C-alpha cells in the first residue's frame, strides 16, 4: 500500500493523514469548494477537488471520489467516519475499482448498517437487544401505521434512522402527540445525512449508561475486543464526553461485555475496526444497541489507555497483516483517558450552529493532553458540515487526574471568532472541586452538566422536540 485516498474532511481526515505519515504512505485528500484551504488539504501530499460544498455534491459523490482515486494512483481508500464511511455502495465501488477499502466488507456494512438486521444478528449471537421494531419503517409507511407500531412498543420511545449514527435522525418521543412532528424531522434529517429516510422504533430505557466496545478483526479469523468506553454524557443524542475505562464496569462485567461484542462480530465475520454499543442498565444487565462499522469519533480514548494506534491497525489489517496484539493488554487499561468534543455551537444561545472564520486559536499543550483538530487560526468553519471542529483528549494517572488535566486544557483552549462549546464543557467540570487535591468528584460532571443544561433551557425560546433541545445527561458516569 503506497498511496491512500482519504474520503473525508476535518479532524478525522487529518488524523488519518498523520497515521499514513507514520507509515510512510502517501496521502490523497479530497475537498469541496469551501474546503480548498482546509487543514486536511494543507497536510496531505495531494489534494483533488470533488465538487460543490453541499455534501451530496462532493463528499457523498461516490463516482467523483472513485475517479480521483484512479487518477491519483491511490491503491486504497480510508473513509473516516460519517459521509460514506458506512455506505455499502461506496465500499463495493472501491472493491470493483480494484481499490482496497480500509474498513469492513460491503456485506458487513449492509448487514450491521441496517439497525434492524443488526439486532437480529445480535439475537443470533445470543446477545440481548432492546425491545423494538424488527422491521424498518420506510418513508412510505403512513403515520397511522407508525403510530400503531409505537402503541405496541409503548412510550416513551426512541425514533431512530435505520441508516443512522451520531444522533442524526434520532428523536425521543414521549407521547403519540409528538410522533408526527418527530417523524417528519427524523426522516428529513436522516434523508439529508444518509440519503435514506427509513426509521425504526425502540423502547427507551430510562437512565441507562452508554457503554461501547471497540473491536478489530483481521482477515485471518481473529477478532479482538478492547477495554470499554463510556459515552453517557450526551446532548441532543450526540456524545459530548467519552472516557475509558467506565467506572460502572468491573473486570468481570468487562469480560462479559467484550465477549458478547466479539461474539456479535464473529457471527457476521466482521473485519477491520468496528464498535458495538450497549445500553447498560442499573442492575448490570446490558442490551445490544447497534454496531458502528467504522472508526469512532472517540477512538482516541481507547488509544490513550491501550497505546494502540487504531488507524494504523486499520491500514495494517486492510493490507492483510495479522492482528498480533496481546488480547489481555487490550482489556487492561493504562490508567484513564477522557475525550471532550468541541463543537462550533453557541452554548449561550441554545447551541445554535456557529460557523465562520476562526480569528484566533490557542490550543492547549503539555503533559497528558492531545488535540485532534481540523481547525487553524484564520481558517473557515463552513456551514455545510458537522459542527464538531476538534476533540480534546486527556490522559491521567487516575480518572480524577485526567479530569484535572481536562479542566486545565479547556481553560487554555481559546477559539475566537466563532462560538464553541468550550465554555460549556469548561463549566461542566469546574464545580465541586476538592481544593487540596484539585480533583473533580466524578458525580459532579453530570450534575453540573445538568446545571449548564438548565442555563441553556432558560436562554432558549424553543420546545423540547426541536433539535435545539438542551443538553441532556442520560446519566451521571459518577453514580
Amino acid at each position, binding site marked *: 500500500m503506497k498511496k491512500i485516498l482519504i474520503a473525508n474532511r476535518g479532524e478525522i481526515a487529518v488524523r488519518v493523514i498523520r497515521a499514513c505519515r507514520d507509515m510512510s504512505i502517501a496521502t490523497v485528500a479530497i475537498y469541496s469548494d469551501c474546503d480548498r484551504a482546509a487543514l486536511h488539504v494543507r497536510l496531505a501530499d495531494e489534494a483533488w477537488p470533488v465538487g460543490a460544498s453541499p455534501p451530496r455534491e462532493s463528499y457523498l459523490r461516490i463516482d467523483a471520489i472513485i475517479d480521483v482515486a484512479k487518477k491519483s494512483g491511490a491503491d486504497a481508500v480510508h473513509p473516516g467516519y460519517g459521509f460514506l464511511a458506512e455506505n455499502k455502495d461506496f465500499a463495493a465501488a472501491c472493491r470493483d475499482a480494484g481499490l482496497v477499502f480500509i474498513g469492513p466488507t460491503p456485506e458487513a456494512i449492509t448487514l450491521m448498517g441496517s439497525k434492524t438486521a443488526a439486532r437480529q444478528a445480535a439475537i443470533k449471537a445470543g446477545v440481548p437487544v432492546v425491545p423494538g421494531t424488527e422491521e424498518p419503517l420506510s418513508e412510505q409507511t403512513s403515520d397511522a401505521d407508525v403510530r400503531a407500531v409505537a402503541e405496541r412498543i409503548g412510550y416513551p420511545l426512541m425514533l431512530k434512522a435505520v441508516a443512522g449514527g451520531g444522533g442524526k435522525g434520532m428523536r425521543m418521543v414521549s407521547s403519540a402527540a409528538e410522533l408526527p412532528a418527530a417523524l417528519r424531522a427524523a426522516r428529513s*434529517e436522516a434523508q439529508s445525512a444518509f440519503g435514506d429516510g427509513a426509521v425504526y422504533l425502540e423502547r427507551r430505557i430510562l437512565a441507562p449508561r452508554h457503554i461501547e466496545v471497540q473491536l478489530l478483526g483481521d482477515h485471518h479469523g481473529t477478532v479482538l475486543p478492547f477495554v470499554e468506553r463510556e459515552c453517557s454524557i450526551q446532548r441532543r443524542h450526540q456524545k459530548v464526553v467519552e472516557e475509558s475505562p467506565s467506572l460502572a464496569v468491573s473486570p468481570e462485567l468487562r469480560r462479559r461485555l467484550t465477549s458478547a461484542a466479539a461474539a456479535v462480530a464473529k457471527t457476521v465475520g466482521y473485519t477491520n475496526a468496528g464498535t458495538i454499543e450497549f445500553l447498560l442498565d442499573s442492575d448490570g444487565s446490558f442490551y445490544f444497541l447497534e454496531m458502528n462499522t467504522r472508526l469512532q469519533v472517540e477512538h482516541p480514548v481507547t488509544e490513550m489507555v491501550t497505546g494502540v494506534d487504531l488507524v494504523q491497525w486499520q491500514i495494517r489489517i486492510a493490507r492483510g497483516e495479522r492482528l498480533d496484539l496481546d488480547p489481555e493488554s487490550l482489556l487492561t487499561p493504562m490508567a484513564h483517558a477522557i475525550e471532550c468534543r468541541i463543537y462550533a455551537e453557541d452554548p*449561550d444561545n441554545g447551541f445554535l*450552529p*456557529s*460557523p465562520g472564520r476562526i480569528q*484566533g486559536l490557542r490550543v492547549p499543550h503539555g503533559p497528558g493532553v492531545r488535540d485532534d483538530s481540523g481547525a487553524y487560526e484564520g481558517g473557515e468553519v463552513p*456551514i455545510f458540515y458537522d459542527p464538531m471542529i476538534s476533540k480534546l483528549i486527556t490522559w491521567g494517572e487516575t480518572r480524577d487526574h485526567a479530569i484535572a488535566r481536562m479542566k486545565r486544557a479547556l481553560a487554555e483552549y481559546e477559539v*475566537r471568532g466563532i462560538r464553541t462549546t*468550550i465554555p460549556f464543557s469548561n463549566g461542566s467540570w469546574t464545580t465541586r472541586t476538592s481544593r487540596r487535591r484539585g480533583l473533580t468528584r466524578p458525580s459532579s460532571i453530570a450534575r453540573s452538566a445538568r446545571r449548564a443544561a438548565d442555563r441553556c433551557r432558560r436562554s432558549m425560546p424553543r420546545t423540547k422536540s426541536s433539535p435545539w433541545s438542551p443538553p441532556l445527561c442520560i446519566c451521571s458516569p459518577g453514580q
Partner: protein
Amino acid sequence: MTFEILAGNTVRQVTVARNGPLLHVVVDGRTLVVDARRVGDMALSLLVAAEGDATPVRSVDAGLAAQRTAGDFDVHLNGRTIPVQVRQAGGFGRQKKAGAAPGTGPQRITAPMPGKIARVLVKAGDEVKARQGLVVVEAMKMENELRAARDGRVCEVSVVEGQSVDAGAILLVVE
C-alpha cells in the same frame, strides 16, 4: 477616554487613562491599575492590580473577537467567553440593551445563523398562531424551526427553499 460597556445586562461606565507604562481604568468609580501588552492581533496580556494596590500582578490573558456590529466583541478569559458591547460615553443612555420589545409591532423573523432555507412552512397572507412553525433553517446538518411568537398574519416572505442566508437576514414578517 470614557466608554460605556454592556456585559450581561449591566452597563458599566469605564474611563481609561494612560499613566506612564500603565493604564488607570476606572470602572463605575473603582480604579484599577493595569499593565497591558499586545501579545497578538486582538490578544492582550493584562496584569491587574488589586483595588488600592499600585503593582499590577494578577495575570489575565484577554482575547478579543470582533462581532458583526461595530463595537461588539466576544472577550475570551481563561476558557470563558463574555460578549460585550462597547460604546462612546452615553451611547447606551439610561436604558439597558437595545432591541424591540417582543410584545408589540410586526415580528421580523431573522436567521439566527448563516445557513440554508430547508423549508418555508407558510406563504404571504397566511394566518398563523403563536408558536406555529414558519420556516426551517438548516446549518451544519441540523434543522432549526423558527416559530411565531404570537398570533398574526404573514405579510411578507423574503426567502425561498434552498436559498442561502446570512445571520441576521430577515426571512419573513408577521404582523
